[in-house]
């Protein structure tokens, strides 16, 4: 790994209309055959940095560019993008937008055709790259027929087909469910280790980056803050948290243990090493089982939302739900998890009457939803979808928040009063006359939530609120959900990010193949590791460490977070006393 394949020398860059540089004085060497991870909060400049390698920055965007980038010996300012494309493959975040052809084989052939590769050679490369990403036999399929993970693997195959020196992946897993994400990381890892492909990947997936990357670059506000191995960077917890980043849970757990017990650093950053570290700590420290874990809240009485023997068959014959029964009581915070296609969204759509049961009954407040209109339900159930920008249709924040109230026929005075109350509560009153889309992304999400809260719904559903968000963005939305829960609202959250939820959710519903596999308090559900794995969900690393502790110690450690695991270790004078 000594020969650099790409060299960035004092690169600074400003987009045409930006007021300050997105990249500042970046100098970096990328070595042949390495897996280089780019980490940093949203807006750090990771995507821009990725686009400098294939010349799209600055050739396509324009703007002011300083310094130089050399890839495979070619200066990216001196060679056209179409020429650089033969050396640098690129895979982007959104699986939908980046696939442009109407069949798998045409998707792979597209760049090769543009590069004037002969037809026979294209035909020979297609099966080879499909095999490399394990998509054999899909040549004639339409990309729409593939799952999210398969689409990203197809994008990787298309990039590989040009036989590039360097493969750039910009957040390739952020839109994917856990299975899709695992598929992509496994594929990239294989390409790197078995074919020696040089990889540059920007990602927020801390646990996977610790596992697979050789080196990490920490980027913040366009500046390289640190370069090092995952062991070096992820052990610097305070620095990561200062930049709004989440370390792997293993690293955070050991950091907390070391801090509390004044043990020397460094901490392990991968689960396997964490488990080994746990064994060695367990031999030298006192392990105190948790004695005051809060019991799960019990909600009784008439359920607010009830589903009995629900079955739903789509018009094409797909049975999306069968035998689903559940009760949700007032004031609960429920987490629904499961793979794409498990039936989560189909279930939630029945609460809102976006879908009607093929069989079974759904009641809200004791009333069968068949007797209610969607407007009736909108008063009682607020729904926050994944992308806030698709839920903004008005020219000002005030209009946006009053939209639903006007539709529901409230008197003008009440509309005004509710809008003022909601905007003040959400800290948006000052921005009331601005166009919602002119606000920063976090504020746009708040506008959408405010628009829903103005209806004063009893139940609020957040559908994948953390997808595509960095750690701070996801926490921000979940903190709002917790506030609403404290105000007495019933909150339902659908997410794939299990590690984020222990601080928020009380109850977990695990769905798989159109039915409920488990419905239990979060402390119990997260420890049903085999069941979670059967539906391709992995428990957070802190849960795995707690399970290891249980195995080692024999007592029960139903822990969920790094803080809870760390609190079990006392490594002072009385070492060895178990």
């Amino acid at each position, binding site marked *: 790994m000594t020969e650099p394949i790409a060299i960035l020398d004092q690169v600074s860059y400003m987009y045409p209309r930006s007021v300050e540089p997105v990249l500042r004085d970046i100098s970096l060497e990328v070595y042949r055959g390495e897996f280089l991870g780019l980490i940093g909060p949203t807006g750090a400049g990771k995507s821009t940095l990725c686009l400098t390698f294939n010349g799209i920055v600055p050739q396509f965007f324009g703007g002011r560019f300083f310094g130089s980038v050399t890839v495979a010996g070619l200066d990216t300012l001196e060679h056209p*993008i179409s020429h650089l494309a033969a050396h640098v493959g690129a895979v982007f975040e959104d699986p939908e937008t980046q696939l442009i052809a109407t069949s798998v084989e045409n998707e792979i052939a597209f760049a090769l055709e543009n590069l004037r590769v002969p037809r026979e050679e294209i035909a020979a490369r297609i099966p080879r790259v499909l095999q490399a990403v394990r998509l054999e036999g899909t040549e004639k399929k339409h990309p729409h027929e593939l799952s999210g993970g398969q689409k990203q693997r197809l994008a990787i195959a298309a990039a590989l087909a040009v036989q590039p020196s360097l493969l750039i992946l910009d957040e390739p897993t952020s839109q994917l469910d856990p299975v899709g994400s695992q598929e992509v990381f496994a594929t990239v890892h294989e390409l790197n280790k078995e074919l020696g492909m040089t990889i540059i990947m920007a990602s927020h997936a801390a646990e996977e980056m610790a596992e697979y990357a050789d080196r990490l670059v920490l980027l913040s506000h366009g500046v390289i803050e640190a370069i090092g191995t995952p062991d070096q960077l992820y052990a610097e917890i305070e620095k990561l948290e200062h930049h709004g980043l989440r370390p792997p849970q293993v690293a955070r757990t050991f950091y907390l243990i070391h801090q509390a017990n004044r043990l020397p650093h460094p901490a392990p950053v991968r689960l396997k090493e964490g488990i080994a570290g746990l064994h060695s700590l367990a031999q030298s420290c006192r392990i105190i089982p948790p004695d005051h874990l809060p019991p799960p809240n019990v909600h009784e009485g008439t359920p607010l939302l009830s589903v009995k023997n629900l079955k739903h068959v789509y018009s*094409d014959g797909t049975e999306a739900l069968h035998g689903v029964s559940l009760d949700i009581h007032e004031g609960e915070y429920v987490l629904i998890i499961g793979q794409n296609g498990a039936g989560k969204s189909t279930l939630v759509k029945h609460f809102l009457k976006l879908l009607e049961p093929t069989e079974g009954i759904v009641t809200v407040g004791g009333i069968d939803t068949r007797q209610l209109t969607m407007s009736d339900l909108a008063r009682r159930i607020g729904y926050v979808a994944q992308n806030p920008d698709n839920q*903004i249709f008005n020219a000002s924040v005030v209009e946006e928040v009053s939209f639903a109230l006007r539709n529901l026929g409230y008197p003008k005075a009440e509309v005004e009063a509710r809008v003022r109350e909601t905007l003040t509560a959400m800290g948006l009153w000052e921005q009331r006359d601005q166009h919602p889309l002119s606000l920063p992304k976090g504020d746009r999400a708040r506008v959408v939530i405010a628009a829903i809260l103005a209806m004063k719904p009893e139940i609020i559903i957040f559908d994948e609120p953390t997808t595509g968000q960095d750690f701070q963005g996801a926490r921000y939305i979940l903190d709002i959900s917790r506030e609403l829960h404290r105000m007495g609202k019933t909150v339902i959250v659908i997410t794939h990010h299990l590690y984020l939820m222990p601080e928020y959710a009380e109850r977990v519903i695990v769905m798989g193949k159109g039915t409920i596999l488990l419905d239990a308090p979060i402390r119990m559900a997260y420890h049903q590791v085999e069941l979670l794995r059967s539906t391709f969900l992995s428990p957070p690393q802190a849960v795995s460490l707690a399970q290891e502790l249980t195995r080692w110690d024999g007592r029960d450690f139903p822990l969920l977070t790094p803080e809870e695991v760390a609190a079990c270790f006392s490594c002072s004078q009385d070492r060895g006393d178990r």
Partner: protein
Amino acid sequence: MSMMRFQTVERDSFFTRMDFRPKLVMMTVISIIAFVWESPAAGGLLTLVVVVASLLAGVKTGYIRMVITIMIPFYLLLLLTHGFFNVDQVKALTGKTELTTLFMFPTTWPVIGGGRMSVEGVLYGLNVIFKTLTLVLVIPLGIFTTEVDKFIVGMVRARVPYKLAFIFSATLRFVPLLFSEIQGIIEAQRLRGLAVEKMGPLKRVQVYSKVAVPLILGAMVKSQMLEVVLQSKAFTGSPDRTYLHESVLGPLDYLMIAFFVLLLIAAVVAYLTVGFGKFGGPF
């Protein structure tokens, strides 16, 4: 899935096996003939042939029904305007000095009293209706029966600039995505208490216009992303590239091209000599 499939037929047929170039000739010839013929009988026959061919090729009846439903208000307007007001042109075409009255408003009625609808005017209106229907339906017959990649290669071989052909195919690729976004936005509006089903047409138009803002913004973000993707795949729009799929004309394709060229010649000759397709002519 249904969204994705609406642009192509699922049935393998004579039309799906044909190269895009004879289909291009077919679309051109039928459009010219539809444009030239003024006789409602001949025009109606041509529309019928196109409809039957579309159904045989697997174009969904639902699609044809949708096209006709959308066009109905326009057709009613055509019948009324031609029936009542297209007097001079119809007289000139038929050579008649007086048109046959089909219907007349009583002269005592204010404003419209004495207004007269003529049989010939209505027939001319029918002719315009058949013209537009043929033009609207021949396009799906040619395009829905062609896989997009064959369609691009066919267009490029027919000397359509590659960039233009690509833009067309990219549009087809992104139409289903756009539809699913529209659906998502309207769903979000309905979940904020918007009862579209209880609204009048004007209010609905107002509501749907609000979909445009997030849709256009989303489309702008997507189109920039698409440009970045295309650049990273060495796309320059240059026709100087290779193609995975060959586009070779087979005997059937040549036969069809010859057939449509002969059909055009025959139609023009028949129109000029025996007046076939002329308004008020023998057929």
